[in-house]
């Protein structure tokens, strides 16, 4: 069955450093991958979508890579700030990509210390 793993439950870094979060998946060939941010008591908020034919995507201080051979995505936040502290979720479409239903990883809780 499809499986998504975000290998760190928690990540603590110093302000100004680059945070790197990892998402691995197995038994799967998704057409795209998404990253979301979730704050306590709130719903997930979409950050980035990267397609299988894209190696890298950027948005402001965020960068996502997608390696379909390794079955891995890396999510980077450069020049991290305390306001970046949240749980970050990796998500893949359940059916490969035609319907939009998502499987989410458990998330990585990022804490950025001043």
């Amino acid at each position, binding site marked *: 069955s499809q499986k998504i793993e975000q290998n760190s439950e928690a990540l603590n870094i110093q302000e100004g450093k680059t945070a790197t979060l990892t998402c691995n998946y197995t038994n799967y060939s998704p*057409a*795209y991958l*998404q990253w979301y941010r979730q704050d306590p*008591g*709130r*719903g*997930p*908020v*979409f950050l980035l*979508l990267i*397609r299988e034919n894209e190696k890298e995507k950027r948005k402001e201080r965020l960068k996502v890579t997608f390696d379909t051979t390794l079955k891995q995505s890396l999510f980077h936040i450069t020049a991290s700030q305390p306001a970046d502290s949240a*749980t970050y*979720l990796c998500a893949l*479409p*359940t059916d490969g*990509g*035609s*319907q*939009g*239903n*998502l*499987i*989410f990883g*458990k*998330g990585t809780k990022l804490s950025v210390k001043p």
Partner: protein
Amino acid sequence: DTAVSQTPKYLVTQMGNDKSIKCEQNLGHDTMYWYKQDSKKFLKIMFSYNNKELIINETVPNRFSPKSPDKAHLNLHINSLELGDSAVYFCASSQGQGAWEAFFGQGTRLTVV
């Protein structure tokens, strides 16, 4: 303006009761979803609706039933509530099926006692 809104935000009820959670989106999206986030924080798809038709029904108990009176609303009805139903339920919508970002509501924390 809230894009995806759910009511109520909190719901405490006794075992065996029937309850509903309402969801509305004002984004003009064609597809709406219900997700469940359990105590271990896993977020799992329950249902999705596209143009008022159920397009997939994951293996959830038939005590759960989605109802969509129109494209902007997708309500969740739960019959005979059980302790294990306690979780946070999120409604979401997307512009269509496939590679579209999902917009989530703020969640409904359901506690069954």
